[in-house]
């Protein structure tokens, strides 16, 4: 039992998230996330698929027994029915609220206390392995 649970948790960790999606054009499911990769299957627009994971501009989709990669722009997430915000709660920050707001100087002073700095931000970036880089068309 423990072994099965362990295998289950390893399999789950491999998925970033699995959520339903819909193709919005004819999609070539490719073997790897590359435009010149081999096409494994073609899926018509309007097909319900499973979005297995995303790597940057590419997503891995599962359509029936086929799984492959296509562009993130080739799918959309279906509109949720009966959304999370359920009943009619007053949203608060609407046009009316903006219209009658008076400046809150105390709250603004509080905002300033949260400020980062060049030094802190650079350390934060380093800790997250974020390197500043030029975006240039190479090769």
């Amino acid at each position, binding site marked *: 039992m423990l072994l099965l649970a362990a295998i289950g948790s390893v399999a789950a960790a491999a998925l970033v*998230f*699995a*959520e*339903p999606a819909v193709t919005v054009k004819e999609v070539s499911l490719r073997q790897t996330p590359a435009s010149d990769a081999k096409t494994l299957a073609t899926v018509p627009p309007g097909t319900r698929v499973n979005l297995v994971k*995303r*790597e*940057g*501009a*590419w997503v891995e989709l599962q359509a029936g027994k086929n799984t492959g990669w296509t562009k*993130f*722009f080739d799918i*959309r*997430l*279906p*509109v*949720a*029915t009966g*959304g999370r*915000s359920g009943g*009619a*709660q007053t*949203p*608060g*920050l*609407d*046009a009316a*609220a*903006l*219209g009658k*707001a*008076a*400046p*809150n*100087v105390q*709250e*603004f002073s*509080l*905002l*300033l206390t*949260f*400020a*980062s*700095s*060049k030094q*802190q*931000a*650079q350390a*934060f*970036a380093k*800790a*997250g*392995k*974020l*390197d*500043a*880089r*030029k*975006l240039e*068309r*190479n090769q």
Partner: protein
Amino acid sequence: MKPPFAPSKRYPFAVSALALIAVLLSAACGTPDANRPAAQPQVTAPAPSPPPAVVAEPPPPPPPEILRELTEAEEIEVGNAIAAGLLGASPLAKSQQQQKYLNNVGFWLALNSGRPELPWHFGIIESSTINAFATPGGNVFVTRGLIERTRSESELAGILAREIAHVVQRHYLNDFRKNAPKWLIADVVSLKSNGLASDSGRAIARVGLEGFARGLPREDVFEADKIGIAIAGRSGYEPYGLVAVLQTLNAIPPNDPAMALFNTTHPSPADRLATLEKDLPPWYEAFAKPNPALARYSAAFKPPKPL
């Protein structure tokens, strides 16, 4: 002093030349309504047929009286007044850990933007609505409702980077200058000594908040999306975090009350996705190596369950 449009004997064409320059300038400055047609030069041209029931060409509109350009110091004071106004509508989230985390992500992005020297401040607004705001001078806000829809630091970075782009491109500053009455400049100049809660502060905040309630021209939103993605990419984030956020927003029912203000002040997520697909250079994909799943994001915010 002679009125500027009065003809004179020496320069009989001064009127039409000046009028022409004025209308071309007003067209170049842009309008808040992207659908308004550009003013036509005052030369006779054959009307297209069949013509609508119009009797005569209306006179060209007078050049808009835009507030003069602000110094960076003035821009910062204006932005602070608008920020204080916004915080009057909805308070900050109280978690120091979350706010510091947001500021670290944001400041790092800003360091890799075109205006790293501004006094950048980032704040989570404790509102269940879905929205983000940026003031001139570098105050950026994200609502709790929007944060809860993100899944990762790169998605959060995508949101902050496009707000930073609004500031870098001076979109809200230009909106303020176009919509502030000319007499407001005296309030701008005196704001530092009068304080954010003074009549000057209130007057400036009023114009800024009206701008938030109205929304920017569509082109400004599309431009900030594109530049924001570049800022995120230059900061080492995989650049498609914003695309993921737009996909999520596109899936929210349009009548969800949390989206009410957002929907009336932005082009639809569907339009923004279509525009980005067209505008993003394909070679950006080379920079899309995914960021490692950062535990610090989950430590600060619990990501939403999959749909």
